[in-house]
């Protein structure tokens, strides 16, 4: 039995999946003041329903990290950066960093090393801090500078945790890695307190299943590992529902998925059976990070979205003032319109009709108003889908063949999940002239997704045969190449080896791996080929667990 819990803005959902079948679901209101309370309540209800607490895994998708950011319960962090020459990023980081000297160039050569006395000064400057983040430019090409600074800080100050930039991401982008490292460190304590509470509460209940945390890229991490990489657990709600779709409705057809919830609709694009990812990474508090996540767009339409009439026009507001009037709310909502138009069947129809009357003008009937509301909701969602497709088509590519053979996404179907999907998705599909699917249990797609999401991890291996080294940033490795004439195939093999190593360290079963990116360039100096630069990024393939024992 796999248990998944997803804490959303409105509801905390739970789902139990056994041998690929959903055997129990629960939905309870989210306890905003104490997330854990709601989580435990969901677990207790599930245990009661299935009559056992013998889970093989519990996976959590929570807003704990997001809430820490929103509520500003962030730790004070000693952020040390080694920027070398180049763009000055001092003023665009979330906090003011301490700048250390030292310099790695784009080939991973150390041009200047960091100075220990500067690190001492930095530790004095951050005397009040127990948690640090260290990030250096081109540290993914040579982590030595970062690692020296970390060692000096550990010697100097009584630190509880240090987040290292090259460990957080093996991809180029110093700005994003620095932001990732900062936020990881800043939520570290908050997350660990939560992890302690979860562990204690489960123990008290006699539940011994290993706990995993969902990541924004749809993979999971063991809680023990997540304690060091807590920022990975941000924005997992939409990822959970995307995974849920993968589990409930696997499809190879190019698709759009819509998760229509309380106040938002999350749109994702699908190609070859997998959702598309963002380039670079997700934004946290407006700062670009290296955290990999699905390419998602949220538009402000959901069942509880407030509706009103402005200058004779029906408008949908991107906010919630409570539930639908049909179920005792005080303000008219999109769900009320769905009830009046007979697209949904719950609550008190007469109260929903009253809601429509509230926003009616010029003697419109409640049904006319309801249709106008739905029309507007569909318009906003369709606009979001179109914008997303335009953005996708405009994504830069760097090879001639990718421009000539432009792989335009030719969407064939819509997959709808979430509380209000059944009412709106058929209308959206008909407006766009597409087929649609409404998977059963779509109301708790997110919890199902969390339950079955595979554990994942990825590494970036870069080989520079001219310099004679290879690096695996995530493992802090820069080593001499075992031999000179390295090929892409050799690099892939070496990458597999290191992926297995990292998976072991992070407590992740290896499973099937896949290549995310690979490139190979000849290095030519003075008209002679001197060697190659090869890089590849490999990951334990994300996806859905079919067997209860598989991902543990």
């Amino acid at each position, binding site marked *: 039995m796999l248990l998944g819990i997803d804490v959303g803005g409105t509801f905390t959902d739970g789902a139990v999946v056994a041998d690929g079948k959903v055997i129990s679901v629960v939905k309870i209101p989210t306890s905003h003041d104490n997330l854990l309370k709601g989580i435990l309540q969901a677990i207790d209800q599930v245990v009661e329903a299935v009559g056992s607490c013998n889970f093989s895994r519990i996976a959590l998708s929570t807003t704990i990290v997001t809430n820490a950011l929103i509520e500003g319960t962030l730790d004070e962090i000693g952020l040390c950066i080694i920027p070398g020459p180049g763009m000055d990023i001092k003023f665009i980081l979330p906090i003011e960093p301490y700048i250390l000297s030292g*310099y790695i*160039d784009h080939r991973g050569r150390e041009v200047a090393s960091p100075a220990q006395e500067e690190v001492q000064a930095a530790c004095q400057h951050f005397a009040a801090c127990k948690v640090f983040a260290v990030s250096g430019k081109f540290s993914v090409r040579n982590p030595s500078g970062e690692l020296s600074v970390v060692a000096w800080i550990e010697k100097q100050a009584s630190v509880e945790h240090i987040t290292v930039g090259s460990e957080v991401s093996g991809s180029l982008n*110093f700005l994003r890695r620095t932001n990732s490292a900062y936020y990881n460190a800043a939520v570290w304590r908050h997350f660990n307190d939560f992890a302690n509470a979860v562990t204690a509460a489960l123990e008290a209940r006699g539940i011994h299943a290993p706990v995993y945390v969902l990541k924004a890229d749809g993979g999971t991490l063991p809680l023990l590992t997540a304690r060091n990489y807590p920022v990975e657990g941000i924005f997992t709600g939409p990822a959970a529902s995307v995974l849920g779709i993968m589990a409930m409705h696997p499809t190879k057809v190019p698709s759009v998925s819509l998760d229509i919830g309380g106040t938002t609709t999350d749109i994702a694009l699908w190609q070859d059976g997998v959702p598309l990812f963002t380039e670079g990474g997700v934004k946290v508090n407006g700062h670009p990070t290296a955290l990999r996540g699905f390419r998602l767009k949220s538009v402000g339409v959901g069942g509880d979205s407030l509706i009103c009439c402005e200058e004779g026009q029906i408008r949908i507001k991107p906010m919630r003032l409570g539930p639908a009037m049909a179920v005792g709310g005080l303000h008219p909502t999109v769900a009320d319109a769905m009830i009046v138009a007979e697209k949904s069947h719950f609550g008190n129809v007469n109260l929903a009709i009253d809601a429509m009357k509230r926003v009616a003008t010029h003697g419109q009937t409640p049904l006319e108003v309801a249709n106008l509301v739905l029309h507007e909701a569909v318009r906003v969602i369709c606009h979001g889908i179109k914008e997303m497709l335009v953005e996708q088509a405009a994504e830069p*590519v760097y090879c001639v063949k990718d*421009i000539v053979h432009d792989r335009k996404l030719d969407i064939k179907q819509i997959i709808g999940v979430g509380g209000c999907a059944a009412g709106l998705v058929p209308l959206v599909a008909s407006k766009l002239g597409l087929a649609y699917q409404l998977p059963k249990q779509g109301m708790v797609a997110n919890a199902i997704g969390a339950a079955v999401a595979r554990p994942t991890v990825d590494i970036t291996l870069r080989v520079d045969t001219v310099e004679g080294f290879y690096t695996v940033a995530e493992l802090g490795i820069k080593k001499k190449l075992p031999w000179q004439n390295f090929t892409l195939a050799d690099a892939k093999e070496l990458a597999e080896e290191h992926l297995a190593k990292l998976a072991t360290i992070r407590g992740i079963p290896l499973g099937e791996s896949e290549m995310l990116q690979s490139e190979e360039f*000849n290095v030519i100096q003075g*008209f002679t080929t001197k060697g190659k630069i090869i890089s590849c990024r490999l990951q334990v393939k994300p996806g859905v667990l079919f067997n209860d024992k598989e991902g543990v």
Partner: protein
Amino acid sequence: MDVKKLGLVFFPAFDWAISSTHPEREERLLYTRDQIIEEGLLDLPNIREYKPTMATYQDIERVHIGVPDIASLITDAHLVSAGGAITAADGVMRREVERAFALVRPPGHHAMRVVHGTRGFCAINIEAIMVEHLRKAYGVRKVAIVDTDVHHGDGTQDIFYHDADTLFISFHQDGRTLYPGTGFTDEMGSPMAMGTTINIPLPPGTTDEGLHEVLDHLIMPILADFKPDIIINSAGQDNHYSDPLANMAITAQGYARLADKLKADIGVLEGGYSIESALPYVNVGIILAMAGLDYGKVIEPDLHKCPLQTRAVKNYINHLVKERQEMWAKREKLKGEAVAKAGDFWTRSRSIYYDDSGIEEQQIENLRLCPKCSGYLTLGTEARALSFGYKSAFAAVISREACFPCRQSAIDAVHKAKRQGKYQQYYIQNKYEDKLEKI
């Protein structure tokens, strides 16, 4: 939508090379890509990255006459790099961005009006194609092109040599010491366009100091006088002290300050083959400067290798600036004299060498100096090369604003030449009707 400071069309063409060890190869912008991405430049709110479109043959034939046709002389990569320049221009003209930089390859500034093959790594002139697109799509008239590549932009000069609405300024390492061996001070434009071609041949060893002397006291004042509707920078980066193909001493700071002062509306990458030591830093410097950001910390790791400027170079440059200032001041007088001397027609014959393909071209131009319009041009071209033997063509070029008699005379000239049958191919490049016709 808010207007961003800089549009960046980045297209490194990672799957295209002239040949595997040629300087114009897959790896050329690899380290630049690494530096741009690592710095996080593409994530800045003031920069918008664009995906290039592909240029059409009509875009290209607004500028070029390919013999026997342009399609057989170029690859898809050329369509993308020209398309990238057009994408940059569109971003600026649609006011999505304040300025734009097409950091694309392959380059174009050695490609002339007539194309028989690739010369100086260039097959089609991506700036010229962009300029003609600006005129056709947006009605832009006065254009200034400042070519800051170390090599003379002989292709761009050729294309706009008779066009008084296009100011072409090129500084470069003196043609007596470097390919293509042209770009001397006496190449100033044909009579009606006299003074709108300005060459500034600099001595080997010119540093940032010398370059900015030229910029501050010559180029910027000339631009202020000319009052262009748009400024384009042919942003070659091979004046860098580490460039393997030239002998200048400009740094990334020198280039970034140049971009900052010039404030070009559109920059287009040209040459630059110090792909590891110069391009990553020069491009970051230019991008930051064009985006209005601080570039003061962009410094090459081996800056100590940059030579200092000698007194002789400084004196030479001071003298050159003075001489060119005087020439610019009396351009109207020079134009009057040249027009009077030429009479109804101006003629020039040249040989043009294609270093990449070993083609020797002989070209004769005959330009009608019309008192009512910008006239028309006829040209005869004969090319010889081991690769293809002999190719020849005769063409007439009708300008956008040609008067009726000039249009008719140009067409007649081509038909007459065809009857005489000396050439293999006959073309009318009719800019008035925006088409290239094969007769």
